């Protein structure tokens, strides 16, 4: 059988949720995944320590030559990260883009911060006059957030923040020494310092075991103690008997029928390089923001000379991303010489400093919208501060030990805003080894984002002073792409002339074509994307199920203001 009800391209947060929802509704689903199926026991090495590896975790020379850094390391099977499918950038664009195309994609390795977006985000344009509102309200998406949180398990607390709606939470992780010190400093500046929303299980949940705090989550969790598509979604889909999962299947283009409607997908088998086709009544693209646009832009036909469903001309445009960078780092003298403490066994964000800017008045700062911070520090796997200490010998050793509990830093998560300069298109010449025309990224940080960055570095100086820490400096912003939070290439909106998809992620032009990833988001807000991808994908998937029930696959959605 090579004809299905639905083809889903991608198996990450968006694809995985669609696959589960559609299969459980009794639909026959073919899932195409560009990479391999990981075997956690073999491919995740999160319980290994540096000395277990030939290059001590620094990576082999080959890895270093090819790698984009990041989680693509000796701690993970090299096939977990993409090294074959190439992309290009326009001149002047520095785009750093580690991609995981393994089954489950980036959910295998994600940072697990899982905050809801809010009405302040969805109606930001109405507040400050920049760009356009999302075509949905918070009330509309809130029930889906709740169901997703209750399904995946998110540890946090009720916080009553205007831009951060509260949800259904497991008990939070406990504050460490540095959290109390940071919080005491933040309070003096009237900045919030609170438990993060972490999709990491502080107790057993829905058949998944609790976290055992080994501390290397971003190398993959082989017990599945945090949400990932392969542990939480795909097994439920497989259990229905309705899923045909094809791995190492690289989608090349969406095929259309005589009327220009989607009828199937042409893909390349990674190993054999064979080109195959598969057919369905409905196509869901969830290949992650940029690859989704690439597949659609590469789907050119008599009907769609500029890419399928691109009547608006907006396909691939409006790319946004989070600026990451260390806005301040230093150390906490209060903790000099203190016993070593397991500060990093939760692998990251026990706490966060959620957006506090431009909440009462959308124009109170020199920039619009807002950013958040993630603190880090404490006893880590490597004493990276060694160059701060003068000397050598026994005294040098003992000073390293004394300083060991004290490092502290803040990572900023600052959203870029929509800009005509930031987009993806198809490189006119270059193809990858599979013969697929490469996607080309064009991206610069906009002035607003850089103003946020400058603001964040000043806040850090004040915060370090308020908490009694020694401020040592800040990094430069990471190059774009690094956060892996791209949004916007298939933005949703009510007007087919200006938006690729409607408010359900359904193509305006090709009603049996849907996008179920962050490509439909209007911008990236100050929150992370995964929880929202899950909520929006759940909503879209149930909308598709309803379409099948009514047999009405050819119509769009009624406009709702």
């Amino acid at each position, binding site marked *: 059988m090579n004809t299905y009800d639905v083809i889903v391209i991608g198996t990450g947060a968006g694809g995985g949720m669609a696959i589960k929802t559609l299969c459980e509704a009794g639909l026959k689903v073919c899932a195409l995944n560009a990479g391999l199926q990981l075997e956690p026991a073999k491919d995740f090495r999160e319980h290994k320590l540096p000395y277990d590896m030939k290059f001590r975790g*620094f990576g082999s020379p080959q890895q270093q030559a090819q790698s984009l850094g990041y989680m693509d390391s000796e701690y993970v099977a090299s096939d977990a990260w993409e090294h074959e499918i190439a992309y290009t950038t326009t001149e002047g664009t520095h785009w750093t883009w580690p991609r995981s195309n393994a089954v489950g994609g980036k959910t295998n390795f994600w940072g697990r911060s899982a905050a809801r977006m809010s009405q302040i985000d969805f109606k930001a344009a109405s507040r400050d006059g920049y760009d356009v509102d999302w075509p949905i309200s918070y009330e509309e998406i809130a029930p889906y957030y709740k169901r997703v949180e209750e399904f995946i398990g998110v540890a946090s607390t009720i916080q009553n923040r205007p831009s951060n709606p509260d949800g259904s939470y497991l008990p939070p992780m406990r504050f460490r020494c540095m959290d109390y010190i940071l919080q005491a400093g933040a309070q003096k500046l009237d900045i919030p310092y609170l438990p993060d929303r972490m999709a990491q299980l502080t107790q057993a949940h829905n058949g998944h075991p609790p*976290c055992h705090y080994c501390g290397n989550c971003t190398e993959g969790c082989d017990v599945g103690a945090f949400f990932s598509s392969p542990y939480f979604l795909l097994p439920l889909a497989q259990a229905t008997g309705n899923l045909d999962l094809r791995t190492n299947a690289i989608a090349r283009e969406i095929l259309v029928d005589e009327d220009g409607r989607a009828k199937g997908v042409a893909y390349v088998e990674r190993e054999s390089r064979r080109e195959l086709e598969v057919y369905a009544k409905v196509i869901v693209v969830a290949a992650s923001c940029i690859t989704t646009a690439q597949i659609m832009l590469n789907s050119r036909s008599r009907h769609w000379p500029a890419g399928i469903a691109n009547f608006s001309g907006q396909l691939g445009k409006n790319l946004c991303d989070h600026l990451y960078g260390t806005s301040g780092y230093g150390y906490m003298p209060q903790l000099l010489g203190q016993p070593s403490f397991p500060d990093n066994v939760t692998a*990251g964000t026990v706490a966060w400093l959620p957006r506090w800017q431009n909440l009462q008045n959308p124009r109170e700062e020199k920039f619009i919208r807002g950013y958040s911070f993630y603190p880090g520090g404490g006893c880590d796997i490597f004493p990276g501060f060694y160059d701060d200490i003068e000397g*050598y010998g026994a005294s*040098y050793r003992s000073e390293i030990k004394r300083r060991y509990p004290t490092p502290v830093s803040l*990572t900023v998560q600052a959203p870029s805003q929509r800009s005509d300069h930031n987009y993806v298109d198809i490189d006119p010449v270059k193809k990858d080894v599979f013969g697929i025309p490469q996607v080309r990224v064009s991206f610069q940080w906009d002035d607003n984002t850089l103003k946020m960055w400058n603001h964040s570095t000043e806040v850090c100086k004040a915060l370090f002073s308020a908490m*009694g820490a020694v401020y040592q400096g800040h990094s430069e912003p990471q190059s774009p792409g690094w956060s892996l939070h791209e949004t916007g290439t298939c933005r949703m909106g009510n007007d087919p002339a200006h938006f690729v998809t409607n408010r359900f992620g359904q193509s305006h032009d090709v009603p049996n074509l849907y996008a179920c990833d962050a490509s439909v988001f209007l911008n990236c807000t100050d929150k992370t994307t995964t929880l929202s991808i899950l909520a929006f994908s759940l909503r879209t998937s149930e909308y598709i199920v309803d379409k099948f029930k009514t047999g009405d696959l050819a119509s769009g959605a009624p406009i709702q203001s």
Partner: protein
Amino acid sequence: MAGQGPSRRELIQAMTIAAAASTFGGFARWNFAHAESMAHHEQDSAIKPLVRPVYTPHFFTPSEYRTVDELSELILPAVSVSAASKTTNARSVRQPGARDVGVAEFIDFTVFSEPALQPRFRDGLRWLDQAAAPASSFISLSAEQQHAILNRLAYAKYHRKSEAPGQQFFILMRRYTVMGFYTTREGLESLDFPGLTFYSTSPGCTHPDNPEHSGL
């Protein structure tokens, strides 16, 4: 989000090794760095002592290698620390140094694997030997004389303008010594690295009643 914990990421970025190590023959000492416990075992039982293979440097000449080994131990020497034991008396415990855990092997293999590092180490070691003049080499100096040179390189107050290349080599040598040492079990244990175990609940601060942690 994609992973906020910056440390390992930065750690990985800290090095860019550019070439393949196709003829790697294995290590002698740091593969056996866990063997201290094995040593006790050997004494207690009839098990034959493990024969440690002799490490043959891949990049350094024998004399360079001896200098690297010597420098690594000078930078991170074995030390005696008082450990408050469960019984009342504090006792002195020997913590292994760079030589015990084979830091020189790590450095040789790393430099062998990364051509860009090779001239920096080779030139630096040559500089050090020249600084030892009229003695023939750094390693032939007395401990006192070695410290006199290293102090000039390591501490800003003793820096000499003419010795900038030596100062840069010292920073490089110290960096790779730290990398080679604190990535061994012994190195991590000397920090009481708390990630060598699992926890049933998320570990929390033990003095929440003192949020500013003053006067600990």
